């Protein structure tokens, strides 16, 4: 069962900004899924469409098989959203905000009390339940929105940059909380984030979105494996006809005079050059391909451009 399923989802805002282009995305039930991408990539737009705050231009979106517009009642009852911007009434108390939200789902106040108390306690807001929301600190406001999103017991929780501007200690306690509701309550979680460490430590699967397109969708593990290797583009002094076979170093032939080599962290560049020389391959210059998620970002984004844009490092004398 897919907790979320998007098919050819597109959004063009009034004024012509194309925020999403033919997004296809499936998130399995029970998954902890990360949606990564630079600012303006379309993450919030995607989430806005799923929770019906933004209208889609075309395509389909289903939550547990229910179309978000045609079967809105079922879809919305299964969905909880923590938006990027604070959007609660600053004059209401913490408890009122959470209880009212439950009532909008048709849950009676009396019945909602239990679930309200549970989440306020777990998120460390119980002592603040009578506080007027605008007096809370930024981190508390964020947690208030998480409690509000969970009070009706959704099966899918979507969080849009939940830890932005939250200090590291609190961020970690929020991680533990999210992990627990994912593991123990089986709530499927999708989160967008800027902190790559966050995606790395929490998410089982990751999609990377840029300029409204999904440019990568894979397991965190697979992504990390790629990160432990450094990739270089090597320009050759003399053209080669076929891919040279270099033991321990995966090589890709990009053209007659250009190859790509992957080097693990524990391998040395000198080794690579020695082995290349043995195979009769002479390198004239080398371009760096990046590393770790941040740089993977750049790598993935760069791949869409041509290969020329990269920093050129002369390899002579290396």
């Amino acid at each position, binding site marked *: 069962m897919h907790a979320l399923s998007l098919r050819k989802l597109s959004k063009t*805002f009034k004024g012509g900004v194309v925020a999403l282009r033919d997004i296809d995305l499936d998130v399995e039930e029970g998954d902890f899924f990360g949606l990564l991408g630079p600012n303006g990539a379309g993450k919030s737009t995607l989430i806005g469409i799923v929770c019906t705050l933004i*209208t889609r231009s075309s395509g389909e979106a289903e939550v547990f098989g229910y179309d978000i517009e045609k079967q809105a009642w079922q879809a919305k009852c299964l969905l909880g959203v923590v938006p990027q*911007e604070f*959007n609660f009434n600053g004059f209401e108390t913490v408890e009122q905000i959470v209880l009212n939200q439950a*009532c*909008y789902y048709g849950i009676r*106040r009396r019945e909602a009390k239990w679930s309200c108390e549970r989440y306020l306690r777990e998120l460390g807001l119980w002592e603040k339940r009578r506080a007027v929301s605008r007096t809370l600190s930024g981190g508390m406001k964020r947690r208030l929105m998480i409690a509000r999103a969970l009070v009706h017991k959704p099966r899918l929780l979507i969080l849009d940059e939940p830890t932005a501007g939250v200090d590291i200690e609190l961020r970690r306690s929020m991680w533990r909380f999210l992990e627990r509701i994912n593991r123990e309550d089986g709530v499927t979680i999708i989160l967008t984030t800027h902190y790559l460490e966050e995606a790395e430590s929490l998410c089982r699967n990751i999609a990377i979105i840029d300029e409204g397109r999904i440019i990568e969708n894979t397991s965190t593990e697979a992504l990390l494996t790629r990160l432990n290797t450094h990739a270089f583009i090597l320009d050759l002094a003399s053209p080669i006809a076929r891919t040279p076979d270099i033991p321990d170093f995966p090589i890709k032939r990009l053209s007659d005079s250009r190859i790509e080599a992957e080097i693990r962290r524990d391998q040395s560049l000198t080794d690579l050059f020695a082995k290349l020389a043995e195979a009769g391959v002479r390198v004239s210059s080398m371009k760096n391909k990046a590393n770790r998620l941040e740089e993977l970002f750049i790598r993935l984004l760069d791949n869409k451009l041509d290969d020329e844009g990269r920093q050129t490092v002369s390899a002579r004398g290396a």
Partner: protein
Amino acid sequence: MYWERSLVALATIARKETTRYLRIWMQTLLPPAITMALYFVIFGNLIGPRIGPMDGYSYIDFIVPGIIMMAVITNSYSNVVSSFFGAKFQRHVEELMVSPTPNAIILLGYVSGGVGRGLLTGFIVTIVSLMFTSLQIHSLFITCSVVLLTSILFSLGGFINGVFARKFDDVAIVPTFILTPLTYLGGVFYSISLLPDFWQVASLANPVLYMVNAFRYGILGAADINIWVAYALILLFIAILGSFSLHLLNRGVGLRS
């Protein structure tokens, strides 16, 4: 099941709306009580005796229904427009939009807030008026039904204004440039029989005139117009504004980009 749950949501919105205007009573309930008391003092007590009877009633008795109605109209309208615009502005309207609450329930909830404040202010102004004159009610049913329907109508008007409002200024434009003139020219302070022929006919195009007069009929038993025409007109306007509001909500106008 569906309706039962919707009712829980409706009760919640209605309670929220009620607490909102009660919490800020200094801005919502007190000003109309003061303004209307001033009208009674100035027009009723000071100037009224010099004007003499209007339609056969003492001037203060004549203006009391109109002034109550004026309070109901402005308060119903401004409650919904400011509350809904505020919810948009602070974005907490999104709490409702992401929930499965049907649009009709959202509309009903906001209208109930406007009606609540409209009627409560009407009641307060009535109490104030009793300090200046005594009221004999000609028909309780007509009085209550006209005030309720008018309050619903202007709550809907306020809702539509709230949907289209993009900045705080937009909240005041309609009340200042449309609502106030229509109310003042709607026979609150005079009987249209005093007007030249042309303006008598022109006044008949003013919907507020029908409401004020129907309400006055409920209290005094006299009106410039046929009260059944007034009922028909109010109901027609409610139907039009109600379906338009719902249409706007369904389309997400001013709410969804």
